């Protein structure tokens, strides 16, 4: 593989002028990280998370000289405080669900106790192992690792300064990700007493009393894990449903399932103040304003886990992973400000503005992943990073990620799978008369013999005479694994007739999708 792609990389060097050739000549003897003279790299990557690593490694495979700036452990959000540890905890919680079902399937499990520390230690060990694997992968790819936080300097050419040392390259990739936000104490007194999803992964014990604030997928996933594992959990949401950007069926069903599994969902509710009691626990004062009724105030007492899942912040509000996109003074420029020195435009929310090729507004500077604020998913960042590398170092001018029909799974209980347009989006885009919905609701075979019953709901959104499938939304056992293949077909433009012509696999839940009537 490596020889093959190196060959392709040579072409890229020609394309990008003499620089590549010159670098090639200097390569020998200049391998010690940090000693590289300015402009010696072809690609500088800020951030060793999913997108940065993927872009850096692919560029290196294609023959580029790459340096990666990362102050902390490799792997970014996904590996350290995201997908990976989250899914481990979800799996842990799934065992709690199985334990309810064991007796129904003939197993006698008289005494079952859960020990949070066991899984915390195993999870941490696994994450550390991944950190090492990632670091080794970077080293194996002959990518220089620059330890520290990077920031752009005022130099005329895009330049990054790390620990007082300047680095430059014709291509600079911003892949610094995002960080969960906590409301300022000025808005909600005591808000800073709470934690975020980052803090969730530091918990040493299962909280006895949890309050999760937010209605997005992170809130849903975390409250699901905590509640299933036995923490008395409340979810505070501003409207009456969670996941409001999802299809309405998912939004309603997920809210219902949370309530079914014992999560105390406080609707139309916002936190007013947070105070710490003498025993170190938190009292969370909330206001509930059901439309048409007088607002009421309530207090949730003795909370040992208050977790904000109210969004992700990008620069400039808080510089993710410590990297700085510009000078410290930029905290003042909100709302589509430009940085005169760098010309890297950031939108009102702090996302780096990029075009469909991941170009920022400054030539030679690119951004991928969560820092762009679009489709905040590991595989998206990875794919975008790789596509960019192929464009920059293999001369594939049209190499870019298609952001349509990206499948997403929420590891709720049961899991949610979704791809494409929601019903409302399809109606808005194509008109009610051109949209046909197929849906089903059933109890999966697994639950045929269990006391515990959790239904599965599925919806197919089709448009036009040919009934092209533009959206698939489902929640139920196995939907996490069902979605991927259907996403392939939907991306290919599958129609309802194609689904009808596919033979079912019996007995599965997935077969319900090819037998919808």
């Amino acid at each position, binding site marked *: 593989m490596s020889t093959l792609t190196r060959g392709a990389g040579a072409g890229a060097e020609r394309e990008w002028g003499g620089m590549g050739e010159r670098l090639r000549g200097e390569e020998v003897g200049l391998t010690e990280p940090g000693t590289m003279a300015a402009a010696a790299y072809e690609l500088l990557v800020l951030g060793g998370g999913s997108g940065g690593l993927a872009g850096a490694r692919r560029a290196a495979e294609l023959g580029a000289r790459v340096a990666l700036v990362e102050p902390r452990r490799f792997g970014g959000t996904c590996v350290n405080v995201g997908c*990976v540890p989250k899914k481990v905890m979800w799996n842990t919680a799934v065992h709690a669900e199985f334990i309810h079902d064991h007796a129904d399937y*003939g*197993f006698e499990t008289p005494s079952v106790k859960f020990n949070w520390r066991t899984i915390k230690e195993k999870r941490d060990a696994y994450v550390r192992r991944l950190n090492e694997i990632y670091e080794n992968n970077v080293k194996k790819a002959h990518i220089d690792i620059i330890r520290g936080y990077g920031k752009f300097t005022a130099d005329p050419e895009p330049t990054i300064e790390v620990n007082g040392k300047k680095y430059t390259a014709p291509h600079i990739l911003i892949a610094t990700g995002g960080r969960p936000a906590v409301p300022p104490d000025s808005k909600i007194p005591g808000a800073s007493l709470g934690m975020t999803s980052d803090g969730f992964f530091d918990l040493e014990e299962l909280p006895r009393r949890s309050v999760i604030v937010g209605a997005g997928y992170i809130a849903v996933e975390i409250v699901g894990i905590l509640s299933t594992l036995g923490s008395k959990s409340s979810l505070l949401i501003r409207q009456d449903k969670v996941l409001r950007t999802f299809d309405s069926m998912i939004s309603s069903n997920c809210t219902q399932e949370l309530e079914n599994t014992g999560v105390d969902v406080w609707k139309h509710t916002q936190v007013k103040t947070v105070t710490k009691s003498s025993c170190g626990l938190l009292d969370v004062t909330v206001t509930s304003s059901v439309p048409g009724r007088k607002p009421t105030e309530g207090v949730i007492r003795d909370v040992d886990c208050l977790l904000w899942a109210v969004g992700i912040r990008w620069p400039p509000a808080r510089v993710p992973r410590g990297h700085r996109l510009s000078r410290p003074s930029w905290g003042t420029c909100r709302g589509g400000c430009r940085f005169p020195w760098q010309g890297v435009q950031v939108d009102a929310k702090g996302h780096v503005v990029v075009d469909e090729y991941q170009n920022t507004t400054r030539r030679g500077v690119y951004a991928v992943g969560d820092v762009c604020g679009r489709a905040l998913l590991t595989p998206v960042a990875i794919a975008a990073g790789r596509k960019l590398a192929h464009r920059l170092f293999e001369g594939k001018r049209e190499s870019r*990620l298609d952001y349509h029909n990206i499948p997403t799974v929420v590891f709720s209980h049961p899991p949610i799978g979704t791809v494409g347009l929601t019903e409302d989006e399809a109606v808005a885009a194509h008109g009610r008369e051109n949209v046909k919905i197929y849906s089903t609701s059933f109890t999966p075979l697994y639950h045929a013999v269990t006391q515990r019953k959790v239904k599965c709901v599925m919806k197919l959104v089709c448009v036009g005479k040919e009934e092209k499938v533009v959206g698939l939304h489902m929640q139920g056992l196995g939907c996490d694994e069902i979605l991927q293949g259907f996403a392939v077909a939907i991306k290919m433009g599958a129609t309802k007739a194609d689904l009808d012509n596919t033979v079912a696999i019996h007995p599965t839940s997935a077969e319900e999708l090819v037998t919808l009537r």
Partner: protein
Amino acid sequence: MAALQRRRLLGVSGLSRTVRALSGMGCPLGSGLAEAAPPPKAPGEDLPSPSHDPHGKNEYDLLVIGGGSGGLACAKEAAQFGRQVAVLDYVEPSPQGTKWGLGGTCVNVGCIPKKLMHQAALLGSALKDAQHYGWNIAQPVHHTWSVMAQAVQNYVKSLNWGHRVQLQDKKVKYFNMKGSFSDPHTVRGLTKGGKETIVTAENIVIATGGRPKYPMHIAGALEYGITSDDLFWLKESPGKTLVVGASYVSLECAGFLTGIGLDTTVMMRSIPLRGFDQQMASLVTEHMESYGTKFLKRCFPTKVEKLESNRLQVTWKNTDLGTEETDSFDTVLWAVGRAPDTETLNLETVGVKTNSETGKIIVDASEATSVPHIYAVGDITEGRPELTPTAIAAGKLLAQRLFGQSSELMDYDNVPTTVFTPLEYGCVGLSEEAAVQCYGSDNIEVYHAYYKPLEFTVAERDATQCYVKMVCLRERAQRILGLHFIGPNAGEVIQGFALGIKCGATYPQLMKTVGIHPTCAEEITKLHITKRSGLDATVTGC
């Protein structure tokens, strides 16, 4: 929730498909002949039969013999067109005396009970994993067969009832009778009590499915052995079990018996999972060995004797060593293949041709037999996959062609299937061997990966056999010919890809789809190592 279950029970959704036995691939279908002990007040019983036509014409537009997946689907679809439809179903008790209700193999002695017992076994493994996830569970955990079996049997009975209700709702006349042809339009139905009814019909569909075979030449085989027709209906644990055969039925049964903690041995004379990709088949059995199933390879039994202890002593030949060996078991399960259930149909009288070797009915692309108005669907037909979903689809399409002015034929290409062994194996399209044979090894590209499911890492489970392989044409577009996946939830994973492949998916199209992280299914969209390259196909990192 009750309402929901009821909906499920009565709905078109799951029920109609419940008939496929033992796994994805061959779901030997509808025993066809059915209802051993008719419930006292079965719905449908009260339906008036259509009045006899005064001009001596046939009573029914369609008569279906066999109330399994294919037969019921065909009958119900025909009834949708307002036609007069009848179904004959009768379950001949197994040699061990096991009998069951309406719905055929899948519902009663196939897919459904098999998958449920597979789920039980998965829960058995989950108990072991749970320790690693921080759950302290007092060991050893005991499994009670009768609790599981009772739950499974109750569910199956609810499905039998559901099928009866569906027939009634759709105004399909149901006869709990064994049918045999007396002339091309007339079938003689015989009840358990010997009462005879003559049914005449314009069109007749044979869908009597198949039954497990016994190796009649082995002394004691029939007398002491059981088959998959009996296993799910056992009231007590089968105990230490010898499963003879290398079919998916054999491996699935041995898999779940091992999973619930029974001492289980598979005896196979030749290769496992014949007809499936053999690399995948080897991985499946390799995993079962590591899972605790014992294998006696290249061995075949010669006799079964009953010991005084009531245990069964089995003697076999080991063809590798040329020796004769013996051991005792509580149960001997024959899973040596299935035979079509045509014997009592009296097919010769009406001229319906069968394959002399297999005994299966010869049909054309429109499921027509050698007699113009007689058709056959499902496991009874020659050369068709023995799968519930194909039987259902074929039955429905047949009814649409007969009564709905449709000309659409069943497409038997790219039929996906899943073997529910402890580590599931799902596939669609060509095996690597078949692709090589069809296109030549120079013209195919095989992408593959050994991956580790995230749920295995913390649980410290060995993922050596978690493997995915995609067989593509090598030309520029790289159309996908076959996809093979071993891992958790293979059945759920492969269905959507089967749709993509049916739509003509190519390797680049698959690669264009963003993965879903962290899942097992995403490994398929990340395939990039070719077999030809000889590179290590182990997945590292995200």
